[in-house]
């Protein structure tokens, strides 16, 4: 084989920019969304670029990737990009090609959308496809939810952008913790320690210090060279399992889905906010997770009905108050909603500002 190459880093993006983009780099003056899924950017020079945003399940086979390339070759001179939410964008410099492109996308079952006041792609993670800690699958839940909310993907019907994200365990890969609606896989059993395996696989001090709540202690029987878990203090984060494979915490019945809502990232109007617990547990029901889908739809509908113009989910809830959120969405309030972690106090209501 040829000389071994390392540390070259990624290719320079400049190689992949279409001529219009290269020429007008840094000189764009404005944009329009001419229809859902199609952005038009205009440069100082008057040059235009049309970006057609297309839904992607993010998992792509090389077959599908080649199909996308085929489309891009045909309409975009071979230039395309992916977005920070895993849609792809076909970068069209010739306006005339827009209509045929739309037709071809429709034919191929590649839906355009995800712009403006829509529900764009769900940022998500590995799930049962590749990870060792998930409580739920990722891609299947995403497919189920997006199928249900599909009407909102290719339209601008909502009071504002709604960003949904999914993480299959508490590690929360992705920006799930700051999403309008976050779907989160949760375990609900403490790890079961396999003492035999632990002795061989894991370092005891590292395992103990992995636990945020201090629930793990050295096993009283020193000869075991293992650990015990104080189950009362365990909140099933799985951090010990990450450090030590001899401590699995899976339970098909108890694992499930939590929903968090009201997060955002942008600074537009209101500052970035965390998503907060809306539903602590929904059963894990593959292949289509109907209870999850239904609850998200309910929240979305209530939001769409209740929010002011331009109001993000977070802003709507903060305006009406969380107590009203639970009321209008018909979600029971439970002990789990009340924070009892490190900064809990700052979530307590130290005022008379509440509604009945």
């Amino acid at each position, binding site marked *: 084989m*040829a000389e*071994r*190459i*390392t*540390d*070259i*880093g*990624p*290719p320079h*993006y400049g190689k992949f920019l279409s001529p219009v*983009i290269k020429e007008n780099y840094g000189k*764009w*003056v*404005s*944009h*329009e*969304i001419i229809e859902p899924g199609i952005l038009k*950017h205009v440069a100082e020079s008057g040059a235009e670029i049309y970006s057609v945003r297309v839904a992607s*399940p993010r*998992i*792509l086979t090389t077959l*599908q*990737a*080649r199909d996308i390339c085929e489309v891009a070759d045909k309409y975009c001179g071979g*230039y*395309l*990009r*992916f*977005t*920070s939410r895993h849609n792809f964008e076909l970068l069209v410099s010739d306006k005339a090609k827009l209509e045929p492109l739309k037709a071809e996308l429709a034919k191929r079952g590649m*839906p355009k959308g995800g712009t403006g006041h829509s529900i764009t792609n769900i940022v998500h993670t590995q799930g*049962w*496809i*590749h*990870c060792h800690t998930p409580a739920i*699958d990722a891609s*299947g839940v995403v497919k189920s939810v997006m199928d249900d909310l*599909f009407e909102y993907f290719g339209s*601008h019907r909502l009071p504002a952008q709604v960003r949904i994200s999914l*993480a299959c365990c508490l590690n929360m890969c992705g*920006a799930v*913790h*700051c999403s309008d609606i976050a779907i989160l896989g949760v375990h609900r059993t403490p790890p079961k320690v396999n003492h035999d395996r632990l002795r061989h696989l894991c370092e005891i001090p590292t395992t103990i210090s*992995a636990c945020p709540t201090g629930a793990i202690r050295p096993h009283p029987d020193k000869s075991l060279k293992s650990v015990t878990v104080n189950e009362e203090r365990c909140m099933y984060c799985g951090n010990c399992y990450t450090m030590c494979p001899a401590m699995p915490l*899976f339970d*098909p019945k108890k694992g499930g889905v939590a929903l968090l809502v009201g997060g955002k*990232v*942008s*600074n*537009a*109007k*209101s500052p*970035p906010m965390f998503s907060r617990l809306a539903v602590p547990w929904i059963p*894990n029901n*593959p*292949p*289509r997770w109907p209870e999850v889908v239904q609850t998200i739809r309910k929240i979305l509908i209530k939001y769409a009905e209740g929010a002011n*113009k*331009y109001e993000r989910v977070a802003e709507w809830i903060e305006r009406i108050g969380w107590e009203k959120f639970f009321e209008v969405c018909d979600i029971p309030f439970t002990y789990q909603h009340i924070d009892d*972690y490190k900064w809990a106090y700052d979530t307590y209501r130290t005022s008379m500002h509440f509604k009945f």
Partner: protein
Amino acid sequence: MHKTPLLDQLESGPYPSFVKDLKRLAAKKPQVNDLLGQLERSYKEKITHWKHGGIVGVLGYGSGIIGRYSDLPDEFPGLEHFHTMRINHPSGWFYTTQAIREVCDIWDQYGSGILNMHGATGDLVLLGTTTDNLEPCFQALAHKGWDIGGSGSAMRSPSCCVGPARCEWAMFDTLEACYECTQHFQFDLHRPSFPYKYKLKFSGCPNDCVAAVARADQSHIGVWRDDIKIDQSAVKAYDGGELKPRGGATPYAKLDVKADVVDLCPTGCMSWDGKTLKIDNKNCNHCMHCINMMPQALKPGSERGVTILMGSHAPILEGAQMSWVIVPFMEVEPPFDNIKELTERIIEWWAENGKNRERVGELILRLGMRTFLEAVGLPPVPQSVIRPRANPFFYWKQEDFDAEAAGKKYYTTK
């Protein structure tokens, strides 16, 4: 082919189906067939069938490969090894079809043919290969100009918004900054020697389209500090309904400049008398709202730079954090030496003081902002906090008393 009655239910519906796609490939690749089979098992049993894998990698590197083994290797032999390779994506996720095809060719040869476009950190993820294939696949890619991305206790593949390539609001060159920093930290990207992961993200403006504030240990967000540029006639066009609100992104036919812009400005620093839009720029907090609503009428000012915020990460261990302001304004230009130098100082301090699996934000919280700021040579600024402390438990150092002796005062003297 494995029977997958549960998964089959995910083939229908309007949203693109990953099952349909995988099935196409399963016809050619036995490991993909096995993947569907094992996934079906997970759907039935509601449990993952993957085991840890922590040792595999390519020669010389300690990052970028996630080892994975099936716990049902006898039933699904194609999954006995099923590691992913994280390939460092190009800034802004721009590609040519040629580049994608080259990657596909290599991946068809050495791996499962399954991709993630992209991973949540931004990498082009190649999903599923065996230990033996890692090194040759890596070198085949390297010869086409690609390198592996980050994982483990290392610098992670930085990412950025589309920025100046296609957005009128980019306050700095996010793509070049991302590229430059990625190149600069190549050593640390591949050789994990930090206390934990370290992520850099670059957003061109406070809309923060890569969610830098939420998931980068060091977040760079573009900002301006002079006046918003106003095209008054365009404002009128919005108010008159000739221009559509938010460039057409909404269900609303017409923008009400007073109600939808001025009244929603979080600082209340705007006014509109039906003719002239006025902004008290000293009190604007760069939220972007007015600009977002009227992209043809308003533009950020021209004194531009980045704000550096630090500390965000997902909830392990202390609960999720968002990044907070450390440097309110820094002028930057290629090759972004000032960003690189500051990053080096920060990482050095963190590497020295951080515990295993302690993110930099957690370390700053543990040792205190003063310790951090002094170590990296930054002054205390009120922009770092939304509010000063409420508790009276603050520290003094001998250097403070020395400064007082030399005349320093904390109260107003005017």
